[in-house]
């Protein structure tokens, strides 16, 4: 290929003339060309993603009327005030928090545990990796229905807990109570998420220095202190990343709740997003729904910023 050859000769020439810097410099004197490349995609992004972000703020300040031609009334911060005094909003927040508390620590501990067990070049490692990752790639809709079936009154979970191990004295109606419902929903969250954190930790464990591990072994350090001092230090950025992503994911829980309990019975398992959805699309209270979405978005946004900051100043963290 002549192009390749010519490129190669050019690079050698350049290397001789000046110590070339990587990364390659972008070309200047571009004129309109880059804007033409950007235009179609960026226009679509602005219209369908960026504009709705702004629109959500605007809608949250109105008693929004969805009917065509009808006018919406500006009500200032009333929607936010209303949320503040709305017991169901607080319950949604509680349930979302509960979901995080129940799902985040197990996903981290189990994900890291499996990653450590798989970190040696053990035979069959690839197979295990695939098996643990399988729930991650399966659609939320399907696994939500599957768990509804597993947690059914005469389903598999009750059979294991009641008929086989006698942990419970009777069949539990998992999805018809608030706490048991949240446990079932969280069980799904953990089962579906472990493979994801495992994969991130597996990648991070590649960066653990073999020399340090060896030095620790020679110094006679025990396994636990080696893990704490060497491994945990090396994977700290990944750990931070996983925690932030899982917390954001916890805020994001929606499909599983909608399909497993529908937020019921009588709104007891409503999480923030299902409550937002219900206000907007069942009660047609779009302004109120938008205000809940805005508050959530700000929360997630702040978390993302914290994450970026933490990544930048990762070395400085004690």
């Amino acid at each position, binding site marked *: 290929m002549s192009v390749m050859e010519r490129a190669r000769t050019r690079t050698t020439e350049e290397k001789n003339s000046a110590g070339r810097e990587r990364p390659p410099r972008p*070309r200047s004197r571009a004129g309109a*060309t880059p804007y033409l490349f950007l235009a179609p995609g960026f226009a679509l*992004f602005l219209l369908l993603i960026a504009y709705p972000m702004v629109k959500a703020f605007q809608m949250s300040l109105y008693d929004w009327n969805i009917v065509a031609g009808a006018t919406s009334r500006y009500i200032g911060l009333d929607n936010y005030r209303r949320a503040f005094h709305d017991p169901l909003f607080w319950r949604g927040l509680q349930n979302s928090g509960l979901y995080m508390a129940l799902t985040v620590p197990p996903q981290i501990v189990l994900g890291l545990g499996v990653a450590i067990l798989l970190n040696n070049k053990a035979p069959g490692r690839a197979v295990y990796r695939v098996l643990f990752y399988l729930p991650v790639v399966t659609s939320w809709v399907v696994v939500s229905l599957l768990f509804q079936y*597993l947690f059914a009154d005469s389903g598999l979970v009750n059979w294991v807990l009641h008929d086989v191990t006698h942990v419970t004295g009777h069949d539990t109606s998992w999805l018809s109570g608030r706490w048991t419902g949240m446990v079932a929903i969280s069980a799904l969250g953990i089962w579906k998420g472990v493979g994801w954190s495992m994969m991130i930790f597996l990648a991070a464990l590649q960066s653990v220095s073999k020399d340090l*591990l060896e030095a620790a072994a020679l110094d006679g350090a025990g396994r636990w202190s080696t893990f704490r001092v060497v491994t945990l230090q090396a994977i700290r950025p990944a750990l931070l990343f996983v925690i932030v992503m899982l917390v954001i994911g916890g805020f994001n829980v929606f*499909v599983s709740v909608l399909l497993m309990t529908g937020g019921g019975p009588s709104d007891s398992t409503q999480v923030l997003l299902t409550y937002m959805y219900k206000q907007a699309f069942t009660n047609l209270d779009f302004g109120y729904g938008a205000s809940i979405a805005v508050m959530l978005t700000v929360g997630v946004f702040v978390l993302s910023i914290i994450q970026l900051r933490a990544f930048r100043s990762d070395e400085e963290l004690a």
Partner: protein
Amino acid sequence: MSAPALPSPVAPGRRGALSGRGFVRYVVLTLGAAVMVLPFVYMLATSFKTQTYVLTIPPQFVPHPATVDNYSRVWSSQGFAHYFWNSLVVAVASTAFSLLLSSMMAYAFARFRFPGREALFRVLLLGLMVPAIMLIVPQFVLAKHLGLINSLTGLVVFYTASTLSLNTFLLRGFFQAIPVELEEAMEVDGAGAVSRYWRLVLPLSRPVLATCTIFTFLASWDEFSWALTTITSPEKRTLPIAIALFQGQNSTLWGLVFAASIIAVLPVVLVFLVFQRHFVQGLTSGAVKG
């Protein structure tokens, strides 16, 4: 005896997998993997059961009598062949548009210096920070104005838009790593920007394009909330909403529900098994949003 178990520094590699510790490791891993896989096995089994055996005590892991009746009923009389087709059309179109538009943007960001480059890129990254579901209320109002409610086109347009940020981000990173000298050489040969993008940069980026293709396709294939909110007529349903609504109407006909679910999940699992490598790559470059 006291060798640390974390990547064993003393004897790296295959230190007898059947030594005491190695054996325990496999037992633990196998138990874990069983918990991961058994629900799928049970679902598959149930999809071959007749209604009588769907919720029996003790549960049946091997359907007896087994029947393929659920599949034939779901596929033909319940219209899932049609929903499958809808899902496929929407996912293929969304993936094609998203990759075309985001690779064009990524090329501009990676290869040109122009006023506003940093600012525009930052704005685009906002799309990575805000989960799609948070925008569903204003997007619904917008879609109503644009006449994109209850149409497959509406699904494609929104799926394309919502995957642009991530794809542009991933592609830009890869494009920047392509030696700029190759392009300069083409320029000397008189090639314009379009031909450099189409004939050089894209062919060299096959791995990252594959990763983006898989993620975008699966995201569109599995998308539920937006489709549920905007699609009202039955003949325009995609698989996820068809399955969910189907379960709503037939809450106890688990055999039928899972036959439909298997039909929806099978392509995904196959794609995953074939393209595992790309999954892992996409993931470790921070590609997956929680």
